[in-house]
């Protein structure tokens, strides 16, 4: 049996008196799309923040390919090949799309600031290489049109794609998507679904996503983890999870006595 790509072991985090995530364990296997669902406040985004080490767990740990990452600083976790997007789009507003994507190549830089200041030959070569690699992502996500636009002036739907593109520019092995379809119209959501499938199949990247659109979830996910109030409800295929009585109760409320 191979080791899982990502493993959460008895993960808990407490904010004051609130148990945001309570003893959650799951494993994500290489090259699968793994979805987290649950009502608001279920702890989905908190789990994302734990994986990318923005939060520290109160108990338990996160392992990436067997290595404990939940004690590392966030930028070191990113260097292990974990990229993410944010629920409320955290792009670099006053920079062009191209510059945003180039930041994604940051982990792969090997020049120091003094070389950058002189713009030495090695910096120039690296820059051209970064530019070429970023162009592949631009082509993959059809962003040719927006290359030199400032992010601040772009419509919401495009920003969402730019954020995905920026994460892909890192050439990650694990991609965390926080509500990829929120704020998108039906057509854009459709595109997003195709892209997630392509990311998995063509680029071979493992995807973990938080999503509310059950249509999208059941279309692209291999397995779904349902959460409620920081605890695991159930784990299984999209169909199994949707049929689970606990999930239905969490979303719609139980029968009053």
């Amino acid at each position, binding site marked *: 049996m191979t080791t899982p790509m990502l493993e959460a072991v008895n993960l808990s985090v407490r904010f004051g008196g609130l148990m945001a995530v309570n003893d959650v364990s799951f494993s994500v296997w290489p090259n699968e799309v793994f979805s987290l669902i649950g009502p608001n406040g279920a702890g989905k985004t908190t789990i994302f923040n734990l994986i990318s080490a923005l939060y520290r767990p109160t108990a338990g740990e996160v392992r990436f390919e067997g290595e404990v990452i939940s004690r590392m600083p966030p930028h070191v976790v990113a260097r292990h090949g974990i990229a993410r997007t944010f629920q*409320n789009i955290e792009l670099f507003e006053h920079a062009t799309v191209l510059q945003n994507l180039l930041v994604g190549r*940051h982990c792969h830089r090997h020049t120091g600031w003094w070389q950058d200041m002189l*713009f030495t030959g090695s910096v120039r070569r690296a820059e051209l290489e970064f530019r*070429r690699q970023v162009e592949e992502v631009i082509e993959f996500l059809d962003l040719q049109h927006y290359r030199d636009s400032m992010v601040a002036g772009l419509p919401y739907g495009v920003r969402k794609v730019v954020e995905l593109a920026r994460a892909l520019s890192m050439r990650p092995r694990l991609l965390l998507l926080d509500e990829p379809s929120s704020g998108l119209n039906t057509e854009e959501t459709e595109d997003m679904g195709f892209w997630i499938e392509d990311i998995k199949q063509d680029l071979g990247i493992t995807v973990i996503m938080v999503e509310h659109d059950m249509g999208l979830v059941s279309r692209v996910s291999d397995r779904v983890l349902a959460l409620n109030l920081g605890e695991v409800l159930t784990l299984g295929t999209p169909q199994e999870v949707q049929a689970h009585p606990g999930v239905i109760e969490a979303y719609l409320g139980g029968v009053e006595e």
Partner: protein
Amino acid sequence: MHFIFKTRYEQDITLFRHGGQRFWYAALALALVAAPWVLSEYTLSQFTFIGIYAIVCLGLMLLAGFTGQVSLGHAGFLAMGAYTEAYLQANGWPFMISLPMSALVAGITGIMIGLPALRVRGMYLSIATLAFGFILEEVVVQAEHITGGNAGRQVGALIIGGINFDDGVNFYYLVTAIAVLCILGVLNLLRSPTGRAFVAIRDSEVSAQSMGINLAHYKTTAFAISAALAGIAGALYAHKIRIITPDQFGFLQSIELLMMVVIGGLGSIQGAIFGPAFWFVVQQFIVTGKDWLPPAIGQQTGLQPTIFGIILIAIVLFEPMGLYGRWLKFRTFLEIFPFYRKGMFKRQKSYMKSERMK
């Protein structure tokens, strides 16, 4: 409007985007070289000051405009540079070594001040740098054997390789050359990974981290480079003024530097040059205009700060991108005449900030 048809990736990383730009910058370089033949000695000296201040503003722009760390203690770095230069020169160090040393000493001070930046941000960071400015001023006053205390310190004549640079024209060339080199260095930084990391930190620390950017490392680097530039400017300032006293590097100086940068336009390299240039031009107007005003107004002591204050308020209200923003609009107007519309540069309000994770 200039549309560039790009066929090579090199075109995305060149400093000059097209022939027109190359032409105009070459013309500007020629004008700077020819200036001593045209300008009076006094005007040339003002140009030298603009050059010196442009170097400090460049550093402050890198820090405040590109990395988002507002410093209210930049005069302190200027002082470090000025006193290091004065001290080393008096001890017989050649300028070619004492200038980099000034930059180094200021840069190391910058790292020390940058350390709180790892813990505090925004307003609190500004206050921390403000406190640092006061402390440094006091240190300069107390360390009399090095700085001469409140009485000030004389700075010797600047002679490099047998050429006397105290003469106005030579010194002007020296300052201009150093300023141009500094600008090129900063431009190079900004088109490379380091500069992008700075901008990333300014716009969103959270996602900068998730892109693998080490916040601590880059914030300290930004402080160090910014302070080193101020140190270089400080060394030149010492030679320009000839007598340096602690009160030249006080709180007011820091505020003035920040005002220059804001008036020039935060987040643009051009702004770092427009700012001080505008400052000295307006100052000149005030000095000459004083005599024309009724004595009750013209002889008031607070005239200059009042006018600059009003200008700053007007800029913040009507042109947040400063003089550079104004220039951008003017240029676009000419380029696409007669199709310029009033709302072209209107910025979209963002409503997504409320849930940001800080």
